[in-house]
């Protein structure tokens, strides 16, 4: 079986080698075209890395910015600390908007070329439940009940730190069932009603259009400021995007999605 197979291969070996040469040549050509295309950067889109909680707001901001300036925006959403790691690993990025300044400063410290940081919005962490509140969650103290399914962000992302701050301030030991990679993960579990309660941002609740309800806000409120910065200072389009976010149009959109002006 093996013998006949190898004899057959010998017969067509030359043809295969010829084909391979052509494949290698085609790949080389493809590479050259790619290198050439990435050099001409006149109408390159702006690469924006933004915290997961900005999904809706920045989607709209990007559309409005493109309409006004004609410059395309490429958005990359994830938990702020995931984005920080991508930036530190050398990802191609023009603008970074994170959900707290700790993550932003860590990214800026590890990569040259960060422009000045500006605070673009403030957000508040709240205790949210699916509309209807089937399990009758009334306060943060209820989260100590192990029978309740509770979700928060992992401690590595800003919303996770805030959740721990909230629990500490309320003096409650929450019985948490999942530490999710970003806040939108928690939101989607709440929307699926796999969770009975979750610690998410006020803006997330606003974005769900009534599908989630805020049960409690901390007193004093647990808040975070969202910094934004240009990563490559030479890029005018990137600076224009940041200016747009900080300007009236950008701020109005952020406010509509539940963020508060700084």
């Amino acid at each position, binding site marked *: 079986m093996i013998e006949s197979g190898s004899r057959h291969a010998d017969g067509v070996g030359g043809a295969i080698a010829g084909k391979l040469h052509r494949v290698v040549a085609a790949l080389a050509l493809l590479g050259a075209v790619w290198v050439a295309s990435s050099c001409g950067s006149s109408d390159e889109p702006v690469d924006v890395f933004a915290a997961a909680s900005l999904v809706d707001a920045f989607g709209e901001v990007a559309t409005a910015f493109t309409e006004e300036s004609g410059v395309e925006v490429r958005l990359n959403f994830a938990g702020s600390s*995931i984005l920080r790691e991508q930036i530190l690993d050398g990802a191609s990025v023009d603008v970074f908007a994170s959900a707290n300044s700790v993550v932003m400063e860590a990214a800026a410290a590890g990569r040259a070329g960060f422009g000045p940081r500006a605070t673009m919005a403030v957000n508040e962490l709240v205790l949210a439940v699916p509309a209807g509140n089937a399990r009758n969650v009334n306060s943060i103290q209820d989260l100590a009940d192990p029978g309740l399914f509770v979700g928060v962000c992992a401690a590595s992302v800003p919303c996770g730190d805030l959740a721990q701050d909230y629990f500490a301030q309320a003096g409650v030991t929450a019985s948490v069932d999942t530490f999710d990679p970003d806040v939108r993960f928690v939101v989607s579990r709440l929307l699926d009603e796999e969770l009975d309660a979750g610690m998410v941002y006020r803006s997330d609740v606003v974005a769900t259009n009534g599908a989630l309800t805020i049960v409690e806000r901390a007193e004093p409120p647990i808040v975070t400021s969202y910094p934004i910065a240009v990563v490559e200072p030479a890029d005018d389009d990137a600076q224009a995007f940041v200016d747009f976010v900080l300007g009236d149009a950008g701020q109005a959109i952020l406010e509509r999605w539940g963020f508060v002006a700084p």
Partner: protein
Amino acid sequence: MGIRRSVKPRRPTRVPGPLLALGVVGVLVFALPFLGLLFRVPWSRLGSIATSAVVVDALWLSLLSSVAAAVISALLGVPLAWILARTDFPGRSFVRAIVTLPMVLPPVVGGAALLFAFGRNGTFGGPLADATSFVLPFSIWGVILANVFVAMPFLIVTVEGAFRNLDPRFEEAASTYGARPLDVFRRVTLPMIRPSLLAGIVLAWARALGEFGATITFAGNLPERTQTLPLAVFVELQRDRDSAVAISLILVVVSLVVLVALRDRWWQR
């Protein structure tokens, strides 16, 4: 090794230059990332990280859930593979496509599908939760189910191939001598495909050990309950790079040892 060579002398094969070049590039695709990982391993902290509570808990949970998934995959997958290989029923290729779909599906999609089916509000999980108050997500059972979902196809494909290659005359002979069909399956068929069965089980186990997307989507991420090693790597990547690299090294070593040990069995049919 020496004995085998004397029994079956192997002609030295001249590898055509382009084949060799592409082959080397192919190896580098895998070797370079592992090298990159090795260069980042914090050797001095390795011991303390490997024995930290997070890693020990995650390792234990990973071993438990992946072994359970491999066993369940074998229990369900072997009969299924036999049916697929030996019988001809309408829609057989559709069934085969369904049970191997998770091999090509992004695991996150699988996790979401599991959630829609077996979540607390899922099509089947809802009634189950109402009747028994048993909820799969956020439990080790959820982890195991997610593992089975992504791992069993590897066992099915491996074992079905073995059933197809098996010479049916041995089974026919056993039947002729009066063995009942189930006995033939147990005493003749299964022993004859043993190497493939082992390979299938280990492949399924290895796939389960590395499972991430379906697990975090369906079962969540809670230390000691659902945080397996891959999930621990993901969380640590954002908090403590050294720790993430160390856990990755553990995963690589465990998987490599098993795959190398298996390799010999694989080719000896």
